[in-house]
């Protein structure tokens, strides 16, 4: 299969570093520790020390860009978000915030695990170097020359073009990717608003704690009950912080698929683009063959400027005709090569296989995410019942 052994991968830690950036300005950034261990060693019960190296977010981005360009028919797993989005008011939008860094660490690990377990991507050498060669990795990546392809690809992806025979399945898949993107982003926004409001509801209850305590001071028999109930109200108000923090994990799962939708769309677009190029190349080939025929037989089928000038100024000399025919033959040969290339480049089967793989993964992952969300909700309800039952006990003792 491949020459690299199966590896256990994890992103263990995050650290702040300072250094000079490309324009010699001082900057602070975070680096993440990637630890790898050979799987068979672990399986055999040894516990070797893991190999490790530090990488920063921009290096992960570089790796991913390389993968996208090199495997245009693969739905490449996404990175965790560059900046905090869909933030509800209490959550920090600061990239240096420890909670954000922690969630990013988890996201980066998730990315590496997904890439390393992908049937195609796992074989990539550059990926291997990324995990094992701290220095020299960047050079290796640049040497692949992927950036040249990247530029043209990006330009092409944003260009508008019309395909004559669009593949129905890919078109539907592209449409689906738009829907997935729209729905996940809507959901994330709505969830953030709900979180905001729920936070408010819980926190206001904390005021009961204070007023019950003050009130208990002027009461005799009612005092103790009120005071204890007040404590429970305080606990209730405080409980929302943990609840919402846990929910961020759910939001991260949704975000992953929001970005996955983009990756899916890119694959469909790339397919569309190649299809377009194929059609152009085919068209070109046909017209060249037609020209050859005209030259060979002297029969002009279609109007051409050359034909007109020939009529007006007389036919050209046989040597010129021979030269032109030769040129055309070369161009036709080239054209046929191009068509062959483009046909393959569409990677129809490979893309379709990976899309199906993605689809199954998505269904499985999102269903699990929904189940976990339901579990979180149940846990919140149980806590609520607990607190209010406790408060009720105190009220009954008033």
């Amino acid at each position: 299969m491949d020459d690299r052994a199966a590896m256990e991968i994890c992103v263990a830690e995050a650290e702040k570093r300072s250094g000079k950036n490309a324009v010699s300005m001082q900057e602070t950034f975070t680096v993440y520790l990637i630890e790898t261990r050979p799987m068979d060693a672990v399986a055999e019960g040894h516990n070797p020390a893991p190999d490790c190296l530090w990488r920063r977010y921009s290096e992960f981005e570089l790796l991913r860009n390389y993968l996208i360009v090199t495997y245009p028919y693969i739905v490449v797993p996404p990175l965790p978000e560059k900046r905090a989005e869909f933030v509800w008011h209490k959550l920090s939008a600061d990239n240096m915030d420890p909670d954000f860094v922690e969630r990013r660490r988890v996201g980066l690990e998730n990315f590496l695990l997904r890439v390393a377990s992908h049937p195609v991507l796992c074989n990539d050498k550059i990926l291997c170097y990324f995990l094992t060669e701290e220095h020299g990795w960047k050079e290796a990546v640049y040497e692949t020359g992927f950036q040249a392809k990247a530029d043209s690809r990006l330009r092409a992806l944003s260009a508008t073009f019309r395909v004559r025979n669009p593949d129905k399945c890919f078109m539907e898949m592209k449409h689906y990717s738009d829907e997935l993107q729209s729905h996940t982003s809507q959901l994330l926004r709505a969830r953030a608003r709900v979180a905001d409001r729920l936070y408010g509801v819980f926190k206001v209850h904390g005021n009961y704690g204070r007023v019950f305590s003050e009130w208990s001071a002027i009461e005799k028999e009612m005092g103790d009950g009120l005071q204890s109930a007040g404590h429970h109200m305080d606990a209730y108000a405080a409980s929302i912080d943990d609840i919402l923090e846990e929910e961020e994990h759910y939001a991260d799962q949704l975000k992953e698929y929001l970005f996955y939708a983009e990756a899916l769309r890119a694959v469909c677009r790339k397919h569309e683009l190649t299809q377009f190029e194929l059609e152009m190349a085919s068209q070109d080939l046909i017209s060249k063959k037609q020209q050859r025929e005209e030259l060979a037989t002297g029969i002009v089928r279609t109007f051409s400027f050359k034909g007109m000038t020939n009529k007006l100024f007389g036919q050209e000399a046989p040597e010129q005709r021979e030269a032109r025919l030769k040129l055309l033959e070369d161009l036709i040969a080239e054209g046929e090569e191009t068509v062959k290339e483009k046909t393959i480049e569409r990677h129809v089967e490979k893309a379709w296989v990976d899309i199906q793989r993605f689809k199954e993964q998505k269904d499985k992952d999102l269903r699990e995410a929904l189940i976990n969300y339901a579990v979180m909700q149940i846990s919140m309800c149980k806590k609520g019942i607990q607190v209010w039952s406790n408060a009720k006990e105190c009220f009954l003792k008033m």
Partner: protein
Amino acid sequence: MSISAPRGLASSGQKPITEILHPLSAAEEPLSPGPDVTVSGGRDKEVGLTNGTPVETPSPASASVLFNRLQLDDDLDSDGRDPYADTETHDLFVTVDDPKKHVSTMETYITYRVSTKTTRIEFDLPDYSVRRRYQDFDWLRTKLEDSQPTHLIPPLPEKFVMKGVVDRFSEEFVETRMKALDKFLKRVADHPVLSFNPHLNAFLSAKDLNKRQGLALLSKVGESVKNVAGGYKLRVRPPEFCAMGEYLDTFNQKLGTIDRIAQRILKEQSEYLTELREYGTVYASWAGSEEELQRPLEGVAGCVTTCCGALEDMSENMGQDFLPVLREYILYIESMKNVLRKRDQSQAEYEGRLEAAVLRKQEDRTPIPAEVEKCQDKMECFNADLKADWERWQSNKRQDFKQLLTGMADKNVTHYEKCQAAWESLITLLQDKQTEDKTRTSVMSLLEGRVFIQIFPGQTSSTPNASLFLSSSRQRGFAHEDKI
């Protein structure tokens, strides 16, 4: 102080007041306000007395009944919903219900049915059913205040409502008001002194409540208490009444705060509800573009909707049951402070007159007029009534708030129970589906001409010759055309 009055005193109602021991006086001496009290015509114009009601049969002393009740209260179960139900002195039952709208040429208004069941002989019949409107309740309260100035009269729900802001005829408003009127009447009927007031009797029994007729006599008696000469300054207020005043002030403040908190919570919950509804619809619309995930997503949307409903119910309840009771107590405190002020005035008058009389006695040996003694009696009765009523009020307040707050806790628990049930049933649904699918994909099967093959991670991707092609089933029909 001994409680030597026999139990069941209130229900006798036949003993002349002279024979009834005032609980706060010395044990041996009966209360001696004189025979004036028993006169129905209210001939005594000068002094309004303890009970002030010149009825044929005297009212029983209040406190003995109160002490009985207090003991019973402690024995009552904490979840006794009706704190007034189980006392043995209860022989007057009143209910306010059945609101109806009346439209006349002049105005539109609501009446309520007031039903009475009683074994008291002050009433001619054992049952009554009359219709009354808010105005009538207001009349009753004013009359009670005038004729029983030394007692704490329970409050009515607010009289005026801003016409533009609140719909006086909306179901919720009428319902809330009716509950408050019912509470008011029950408190009055339950009061050992107030319940024997002839105005109450008229209110409960008269076919047509003619407010102008016949009871004018009574107001004169009340007047004399109200018309305490101004200019008497209170020297020293007894500490127990100071404590009452301070308590009321602080309690008032705390109730105000609780009212604000409760309102704020309702507001926050309403905004949360709006966002939650929107949140649910996003799941539902996402479900529309999915296949495998359609059922799970619709399930989540359904759960969110259920939670919305549960929250709505709870908020409605809080608005209708919790806030009105708080507001009612705030009104109660206001009227209590008024009574405290009147007590102060009564003490000031007595002390003022006493001082003047003592001076005169020193000058020309004029004996202390009987009038001054009557003032003293008046003040002492006032103090006694107030103290008794205060204890009673404290006890009722404790019950009311216990009920109110446990009610609030219950509503919250119910709300969470409903939500939990919804999410739990969703999990069952989702997990069943999961096990269902797992068994399917592990089997290579030919379903409708399509082939399912699992890809194992680590395998090289398909080369054009590999016969790996997947298709998904169902509606979208993504079966790929391009076979190798």
